[in-house]
């Protein structure tokens, strides 16, 4: 095929280049993803007997709970991938390049979004094959739920990375944030088993909606998936908008303490 007959449009070339090099950066720093895959697998197996005693949907809770918790931890992969661009001063170089804002965002977001999906998919398969979670009733619904949850995480992680003032802040925000979001969201202690006052505060954690969406998706409950799904989408959109605004303006010199 000669390049004259088939010329790829420039925006696609640029977005493609950004996706390629962002993926390379992720691949060369795989330790986070690996630990966020192995740890939940261990916990799933550990908690499964406990949950099956306490709940009808015990094995689903064991799998989706850990999946939610460690996918929230994986938010730090998103945050880190953006934060290094600030730390290395490379973001301004991209901003000054010919690439449009949308191309930069797609190049940055797609690889980490893919990482988030892979993590969820691997954990679902592990949950079904090893932990004894029933096979999802609708793979389409589950995929949709995983994408929506991935989008919410992407937005939250991106926002965090653009508003913190130092790497230390980012560590704290990601670690403490992930623990709060996931535990209040019912990843460790299922919401149904919480005392009423605790159940009341679960509404404030995005994890609550993520978990109930994923659980309903595994059970094949369309309405139960879509309702929290809309909330997750909104969270992703709002956080994503804040991140996009910050990224578009850059930080100049005044950015990191």
């Amino acid at each position: 095929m000669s390049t004259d007959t088939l010329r790829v449009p420039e925006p696609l070339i640029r977005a493609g280049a950004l996706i390629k090099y962002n993926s390379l950066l992720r691949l060369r720093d795989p330790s986070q993803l690996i630990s966020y895959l192995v740890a939940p697998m261990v916990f799933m197996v550990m908690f499964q007997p406990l949950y099956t005693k306490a709940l009808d949907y015990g094995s689903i809770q064991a799998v989706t709970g850990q999946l939610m918790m460690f996918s929230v931890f994986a938010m730090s992969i998103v945050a880190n991938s953006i934060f290094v661009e600030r730390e290395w001063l490379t973001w301004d170089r991209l901003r000054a390049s010919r690439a449009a804002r949308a191309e930069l965002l797609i190049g940055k977001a797609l690889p980490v979004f893919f990482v988030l999906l892979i993590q969820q998919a691997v954990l679902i398969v592990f949950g079904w094959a090893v932990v004894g979670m029933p096979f999802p009733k609708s793979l389409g619904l589950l995929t949709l739920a995983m994408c929506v949850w991935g989008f919410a995480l992407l937005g939250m992680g991106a926002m965090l990375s653009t508003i913190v003032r130092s790497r230390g802040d980012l560590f704290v925000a990601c670690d403490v944030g992930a623990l709060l979001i996931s535990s209040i969201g019912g990843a460790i202690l299922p919401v149904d088993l919480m005392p009423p006052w605790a159940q009341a505060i679960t509404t404030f954690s995005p994890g609550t909606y993520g978990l109930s969406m994923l659980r309903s998706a595994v059970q094949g409950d369309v309405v139960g998936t879509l309702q929290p799904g809309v909330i997750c989408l909104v969270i992703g959109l709002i956080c994503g908008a804040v991140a996009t605004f910050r990224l578009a303006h850059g930080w100049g010199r005044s950015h990191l303490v």
Partner: protein
Amino acid sequence: MLEATDLTKKYDEVQALDGFSLSVAAGEICGLVGHNGAGKTTFVDMVSGLLRPDSGAVLVDGVPPHETRGEIGISPQHIALYRPLSVREHLELYGRLAGLRRKALKAEIEELATAMQLTSFLERRAGLLSGGQQRRTQAATALIHRPKLLLMDEPTAGADPETRQALLDVVKQRAAEGAAIVYTTHYLNELADLKASLAVASHGKVIARGSSAELLDGLPGEVRVRTTDHEYHRATTDPTAALMAVLAEARGTVESVELRNPDLDDLYRSLAVSDVH
């Protein structure tokens, strides 16, 4: 090619730019010099489209920078490289972002790597490079797509003499091909080598602009006479007269006579450029 008029920029207490104007023609290398904090990098960031001026305007080839971004090649003052990516990957990334297609990109990388002496570490990750190697890599990412306007902010800081010369040669070649180049440096003799025109910045504005011949014209050179007794220095615009005068009063036997033409250091001194108010 580049036209900046009356740029101002204020940060809390610092007036970083204070009526900064500078025009650079196609094919011209403009040596931008000035004390630390004079506003050189702030100016470069504005031309890159990264920073908006409080007032004033920048035009690159007739349009504002954010509309022409691809036509500009930038080598920032501070190292901005992806530590896990190799030198070749950097050149590929910035080349592709500038719209180079595969074949052209490959050819440009080969040519530039040879000219800039990057071949021996082309596959090495940026994080593993020495400081001077990183700086050359960064300069190469600015050059890869043959931009019409090149902004090089201290591109030779920390480079050894040989590689510095390699970079200067590439810069000269790009100017000969018609690129407008803004070249910031604290090494004034580089600018003589580049045959650059000069812009001297001080406290946020350009206080002297012209060819080095114009700016040096009328500046005192120096006469040095060493005798067995003493060493005589005299600043002068009329070397012959000064030499006669020195010889007339000199005691002892003359050992050496030296006439030094005014250079950029003298210009700097004559403009009393400093960051002390």
